[in-house]
């Protein structure tokens, strides 16, 4: 087990293309940290730099306070699970899992024990003599994890491990990886573009965008107090309703209505242009309030999602239970002002 720290880490391809612009943060011993962001944000590159698969152009990465910039992958004591599983096709599950020990010339007993232990944890025992081609996607992913567990590394790295699985399996594997972490308590860095994966699995989330860190925090911190507009819209599903308005005597005018100012933003001066955001789940239907026209009603059973139109802006509302409203009805919205978010109109930072 180990801590990991990134200190002003940069990545440049050639002399010009800079993909990571100086990233600094620490990962505690035993923590499950998820790097999340849209594709091209540099999250995989950062992970591959930690893994030793990419050179570090600037700054330092340390594991347990030892700078590892110049160390070979194999000397960093890490294990990685790839999106494509990367199982050796010509080896059985057992041989795949034992490969790293074979390279380290571990004795037969140790190898046997470690593989059996990992197979137990992941219920792979019946599959040990099979070849990867004889396994389903979920099983292959478990073998890839088994290969990592056998190593007993300081840090587990996951690079979008669930992206090749179907939706149902993804949810199951998500829980499995989280259970695995709770059992082994190995420091884990997990890369995904799926914010739901990030929210459900992470102890802390690092939101990345265009090669910089937008915000670091626990899932609920990011959800409740997004530091800027990008995080606000990236985290949460359906994503936050946002529109541009002007502060006007303690409320925000926009879309032809007055929106209450959240108490923690009451200091913002009148006339400031802001982005005003409210999460779909925080909106409620009421008998009076802000008027909206219903465009689409999407019942999903436990919840109902309404697509609404206010002025020229689409709004989403998620409510528990069911509703009698129909398209083209006019409804009224109310919400707790404390749940609203206000961001600066130009810097897009939280106010």
């Amino acid at each position, binding site marked *: 087990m180990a801590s990991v720290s990134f200190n002003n880490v940069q990545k440049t391809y050639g002399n010009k293309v800079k993909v990571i612009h100086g990233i600094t943060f620490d990962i505690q011993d035993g923590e499950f940290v998820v790097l999340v962001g849209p594709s091209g944000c540099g999250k995989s590159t950062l992970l591959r730099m930690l893994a030793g698969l990419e050179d570090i152009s600037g700054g330092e990465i340390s594991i347990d306070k030892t700078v590892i910039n110049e160390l070979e992958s194999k000397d960093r004591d890490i294990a990685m699970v790839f999106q494509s599983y*990367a199982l050796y096709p010509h080896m059985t599950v057992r041989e795949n899992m034992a490969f790293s020990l074979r390279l380290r010339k571990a004795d037969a007993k140790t190898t046997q024990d470690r593989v059996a232990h990992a197979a137990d944890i992941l219920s792979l025992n019946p599959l040990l003599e099979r070849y990867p081609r004889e396994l389903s996607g979920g099983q292959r992913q478990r073998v890839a994890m088994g290969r990592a567990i056998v*190593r007993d590394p300081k840090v587990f790295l996951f690079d979008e491990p669930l992206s090749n699985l179907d939706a149902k399996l993804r949810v199951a594997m998500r829980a499995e990886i989280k259970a695995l972490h709770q059992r082994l308590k190995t420091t884990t860095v997990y890369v995904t573009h799926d914010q739901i994966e990030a929210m459900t699995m992470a102890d802390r989330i690092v939101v990345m965008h265009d090669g910089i860190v937008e915000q670091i925090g626990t899932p609920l911190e990011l959800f409740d107090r997004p530091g800027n507009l990008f995080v606000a819209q990236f985290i949460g599903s359906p994503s936050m309703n946002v529109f541009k308005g002007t502060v006007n005597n303690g409320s925000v005018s926009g879309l032809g209505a007055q929106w209450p100012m959240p108490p923690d933003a009451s200091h913002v001066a009148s006339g400031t242009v802001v982005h005003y955001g409210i999460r779909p789940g925080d909106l409620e239907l009421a008998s009076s309030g802000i008027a909206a026209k219903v465009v689409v009603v999407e019942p999903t059973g436990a919840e109902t999602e309404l697509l609404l139109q206010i002025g020229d802006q689409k709004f989403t509302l998620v409510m528990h239970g069911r509703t009698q409203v129909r398209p083209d009805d006019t409804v009224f919205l109310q919400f707790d002002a404390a749940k609203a978010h206000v961001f600066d109109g130009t810097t897009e930072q939280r106010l």
Partner: protein
Amino acid sequence: MSLKKITSEAKLLLIGIPVLLWTLFPLYHMVLFAISPRDTATSGRLWPEHPTLQNFEIVFKKQHFYLDHFWSQLGNSFFIAITVGALTLLVATTSAFAISRLKVRGGQTVMNLALFTYFIPAAFLAVPMYKTMGLYGLLNNQWALILAMVTIASPYCIWVLKQASDKLPFELDEAARIDGATALQLFWMVYLPLMVPSLVAVGTYALLLAWNEYLYAFLLLSNDLDVTLAVALGNFLSADDSPWELLMATGLVYALPPAAIYYTFKRYMVSGLTAGAVKS
């Protein structure tokens, strides 16, 4: 079967049958001569009146002065072909691995040069090659032929293997590196086992190229005990009344190993040689 399918099959047959006859006719001719008694081979009959295996007996028992060294010449052919196959594999596999997987500097230049060699027919290089081998003092030495054939076979083999290597997912190498493999371990434990089909195809290609080679063998070797059977077959024609039936019987024997090799490995040949033919 629909009319459309029948017409398309008919068209295929219309091309296929002439091609088949075209290919089989020389073989038929060879077999016909090989089983004809002396002096009746050119009688013009489609099948000999008294088919015989006596010609093979003469060949195997070396009962003709052209065949004095039959077994050692056949042995030479085997030795040279197998050595060329093995050496070419060694050269091509290591090059392809270095270029495709280790991404060594200048790899692309090597690939371009390999492709460039195919603009020059091997026959053009025969004289320079003769001169080079002379400088090395290798004339009349079987290694001259072996080295020349490895030189001629390697570029194509490197090209094919490089294309096939490129298809292996790169994550496998990364996983192996993280698992602790050195480049050499990666080569032996991950790369080679996965390349087997292409290796068989390429090795067979080089082996058959050397087995069938006449020009270079003729130029670089002259001692009757050193030449390959292909050259010995050529020598049959040095006199006015060539023993055609023995020539064809020997030729038939000479044609069997390639046929056997091809038959054994045809599964790999097709998949291996087309692998990398198109970018997929």
